[in-house]
């Protein structure tokens, strides 16, 4: 019933995105905190390194991860605190995927041209 069905995929993706975001956050706070060394410190050199396209694509993946994890997190909260949430968990999950895609469109529209250098 559970293995290989929507619920398991939802869980695996939720866990992968959560773990990836937590690791990103640890790095992110460290690199932002380099501003403490001032305008002539390591910050600008570091950021210039991160502005290379593979890292910009990485940020897009981070954004996608946040949106999926947030919406699926709301789905989990609904399953936990409503009487009907568990019954509709599968359609709710397709809703999560649909909304994630929908939010992704304007994000990609804004950021892909920036990465390609044509914005």
């Amino acid at each position: 019933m559970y293995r290989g069905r929507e619920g398991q995929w939802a869980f695996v993706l939720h866990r992968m995105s959560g773990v990836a975001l937590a690791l990103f956050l640890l790095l992110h706070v460290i690199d932002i905190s380099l501003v403490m060394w001032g305008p002539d410190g390591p910050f600008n050199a570091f950021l210039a390194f991160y502005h290379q396209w593979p890292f910009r694509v990485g940020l897009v993946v981070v954004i996608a991860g946040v949106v999926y994890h947030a919406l699926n997190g709301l789905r989990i909260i609904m399953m936990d605190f409503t009487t009907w949430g568990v019954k509709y968990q599968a359609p709710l999950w397709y809703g999560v995927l649909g909304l994630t895609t929908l939010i992704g469109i304007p994000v990609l529209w804004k950021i892909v041209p920036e990465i390609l250098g044509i914005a």
Partner: protein
Amino acid sequence: MARAAAPRTFRDAQATYRTNGELAWWVFMRVSGFLLVFLTFGHLWANNMAFNAGQIDFDYVASRLAQPSVKVYDSFLLLFALLHGVNGLRYSIEDYIQRPQRRVAAKVALFTVAGIVFVLGVMALWTFSFSEMGDAVRALNE
């Protein structure tokens, strides 16, 4: 205890967790998760949609952190995202690392790193006055 099948209702959770501590974390994950929807979406909007993330540099961050509202906002983001994320990583450690010694070692490493990152994050937000620091550096260069 394997957490792969997390408890599904508040009453389930009460029955599953022997300690009030774990029950409190279960509630915290849901409350902080709800708040993080607004905190992370607002943060991503400011730095990716209202601005070109490929142009973030010292001046941009200093101009953001010179605003008290951004400092307060980022403090809540830091606090909730770090607690929520680190507790989530702890769940994964408890699921995948079985040997007691390794499990303890992994948790000690995780909490140490998280503690250092928290201190760095708070310092970056509160111990410098970015408007004054910018002025001071400009004065030096004149």
